[in-house]
């Protein structure tokens, strides 16, 4: 099998086509536009539909329509566009429609700037739209994962009948790395619930409205049960040197790449540093944190945000271990050296506090 040097954003579209995606409705925004452009190129050639919508509001509602018609469908956007899509994402979760949304994040709030931040975490992972729903969120940290997690995203979206967000930062979207594409080509069957304009699907209804309180409550409980199932079966994380790590670095996306470099260097210096990288941001790998915390002394969260995933890490550890936080925002990336220095400081501090314990 050959490896292809390809940009993350383009890899998403090729993987989507292999995964059976035959609809793309989008609106341009940096740094996600290459996805929309690649979809414009390939969708018509593979018998799919590409349409540049009049807004992200329209685009996500087009996903609603295509998905209702039983097509594997996706869109791509970034911060400001994802904000506009929240309406449709809530409707799709409510109506139990699968779709894949690629969020190639940029810096905010407002127009912010087009460089990378990880500040969409709250609006994506916590469900930025209205109502009791969640999206499943996958966070690739390499171009290969742009491929693998895109394919996974379509499968999860169908399995859970729910929107899945592929959340990558601008770096992962813009960079090129060699990837292997899956050999398998998916040809999805028409879902039995779809409304496809045929006799067999005539009695089907796609809707998110439940006028009766009890029926809506039952529906929400049903959605929750799906999310609970996702928590049990779909949680993914990568660990590096965690078996004996005293300091555990936590980050996702491009940050995780930097953390891996830092950990390797710290190890070379004899420091017991490990990395825990959430791959699924929802469901969050809480159990992994709990397990690793039995040995680790301190967790260091590094984020290109003001501490959004940090909250989930704190919830997962529930006060059992200290959680330190290193933040860069505005499009700045924490440098390898900056993180290393921060880690060295934590190691020192934790050694000191141990001495105190011994003395006391």
């Amino acid at each position, binding site marked *: 099998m050959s490896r292809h040097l390809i940009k993350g954003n383009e890899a998403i579209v090729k993987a989507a086509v292999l995964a059976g995606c035959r609809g793309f409705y989008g609106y341009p925004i940096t740094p996600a536009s290459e996805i929309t452009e690649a979809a414009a190129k390939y969708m018509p050639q593979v018998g799919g539909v590409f349409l540049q919508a009049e807004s992200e509001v329209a685009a996500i509602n*087009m996903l609603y329509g295509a998905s209702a018609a039983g097509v594997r469908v996706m869109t791509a956007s970034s911060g400001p566009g994802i904000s506009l899509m929240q309406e449709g994402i809530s409707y799709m979760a409510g109506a139990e429609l699968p779709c894949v949304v690629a969020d190639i994040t940029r810096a905010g709030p407002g127009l912010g700037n087009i460089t990378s931040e990880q500040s969409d975490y709250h609006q994506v992972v916590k469900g930025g739209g209205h109502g009791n729903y969640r999206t499943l969120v996958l966070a690739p940290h390499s171009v290969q994962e742009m491929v693998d997690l895109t394919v996974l995203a379509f499968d999860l979206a169908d399995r859970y009948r729910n929107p899945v967000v592929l959340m990558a930062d601008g770096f992962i979207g813009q960079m090129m790395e060699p990837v292997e594409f899956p050999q398998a080509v998916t040809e999805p069957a028409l879902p039995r619930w779809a409304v496809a304009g045929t006799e067999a699907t005539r009695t089907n209804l796609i809707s998110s409205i439940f006028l009766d309180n009890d029926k809506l409550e039952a529906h929400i409980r049903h959605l929750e049960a799906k999310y609970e199932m996702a928590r049990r079966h779909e949680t993914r994380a990568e660990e590096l040197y965690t078996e004996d790590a005293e300091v555990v670095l936590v980050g996702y996306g491009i940050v995780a790449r930097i953390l891996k470099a830092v950990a390797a260097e710290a190890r070379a210096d004899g420091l017991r540093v490990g990395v825990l990288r959430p791959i699924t941001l929802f469901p969050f790998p809480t159990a992994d944190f709990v397990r690793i915390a039995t040995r680790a002394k301190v967790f260091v969260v590094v984020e290109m945000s003001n501490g959004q995933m940090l909250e989930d890490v704190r919830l997962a550890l529930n006060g059992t271990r200290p959680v330190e936080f290193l933040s860069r925002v505005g499009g700045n990336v924490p440098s390898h050296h900056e993180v290393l220095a921060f880690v060295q400081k934590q190691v020192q501090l934790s050694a000191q506090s141990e001495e105190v314990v011994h003395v006391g």
Partner: protein
Amino acid sequence: MSDDLEMQYEVARSRPEAFYERFDRKDELQHQTHYCPGCGHGIIHKMVAQAIDELGIQNRTILISPVGCSVFAYYYFDVGNVQAAHGRAPAVATAVKRSRSQSIVISYQGDGDLSAIGSAEILHAANRGENISVIFVNNAIYSMTGGQVAPTTLLGQRSTTTPEGRSAEREGYPLRVSELLGALEAPVYIERVGIGDNKQIAQAYRAVRKAIENQVRGLGFSLVEILSTCPTIWKMSPVESQRWVHDVMEKTFPLGLIRERTKDAQPHETPAPAPADLRKVLGIADQARIVPHQVAKSATNLQVRVAGFGGQGVLLLGEILAEAGLNAGLEVSWLPSYGPEMRSGTSNCHVRISSEPIDSPLVTRPDVLVAMNEPSLHKFYESVPPGGWVLYNRDAMPGECKRTDLNVLARPFTQIAKDLGDARTGNMIMLGALIECTGAVPWQSVDAALRQMIKSEKWLELDRRALARGRELMREPVEEAVHEG
């Protein structure tokens, strides 16, 4: 006249096949609709159902219901049903139709839904000429939410949010959406009708049927605006309501044909079938590469930063280097700067080539800095660690760059390229020098990368010559770093 009466009888009394016999999706009173007595929605639903019957399209029909009093249209229509967000029905309909071209998609919308919150979606669906049928029920008010002003509310008409009546200064004028859409090229059929009396109802039915039939014939975008009644919010009897449509609404919203181009319309094409070989279309069919064992004997870990003006081939240089590394069986990463710098005309990229998996693709301490202009040299000069290389596109380093712990090759690469045949191959000369000084990738994998990426024979030749020249420049005897005064 008697004809019309008969038609109206048909519309009003018998149950069309496209209606359910019992409304099981309703929670209670499943033998009657949820509409108020005399509500226009009930009458218009029957028109739509009857047209579906007459055209024999029940199995193919997909009804998009809006947000408004007709949100529950799916209680009644025995067709495929999709309920859409407020105002978004035309976007939903667009994708349903494009996904299932054999289906007949009817977007049913109220005037708040279509002319206010959904004004962008209807405008663009119409402008794209989507092959859908829109039934636009204009009752001049937001009914479902209890009677607030709509863009279509008449001047002087009271609503809960215009308690003194609509004024042009405050709320603007009643929006004539059909006329607005009539200004577009794409729509094939737009007509405004009413349900003010039996005659109007008969005409309304013909229009509804035509709008749907146009789609069956593949002709394109059709919209029927129906001036409708809302006795409850208007606080009128059903009979008074009909009269109000006839005597008052019509003055602001004149009935009649606004667009009729069905004669010249060409049936929409159905999309082409999917190709057999997806991988080929995607450009990811297996390709032969140079086998790894030919090369990369020792451990490799090269970090490069390339920087210069846009148009100097900064990104391409990096890409060819990365592709060459891949050809040599190594791990590679290439990361461009894509920020605001792009606008200011400079660009740079990070390239890593390694025999081990690459952790961070960000290069903060480059082993080699390729500086294609002076600002780039200044920006990254200090980041090069001792023993690193700087390739600089001038015949001498600027005076302030005095480090003695670096290897430097300062040459006017762009000028040399010009002498060689084309100034634009300056990047390739620098790449040649880089390959030579690092030895990170073998020459044959660089050549293979060139062949993969440069499709024109002329450019391939120029680039090969440039690479060779770079190699020579690097091999020339090392001299002391020259500094500009």
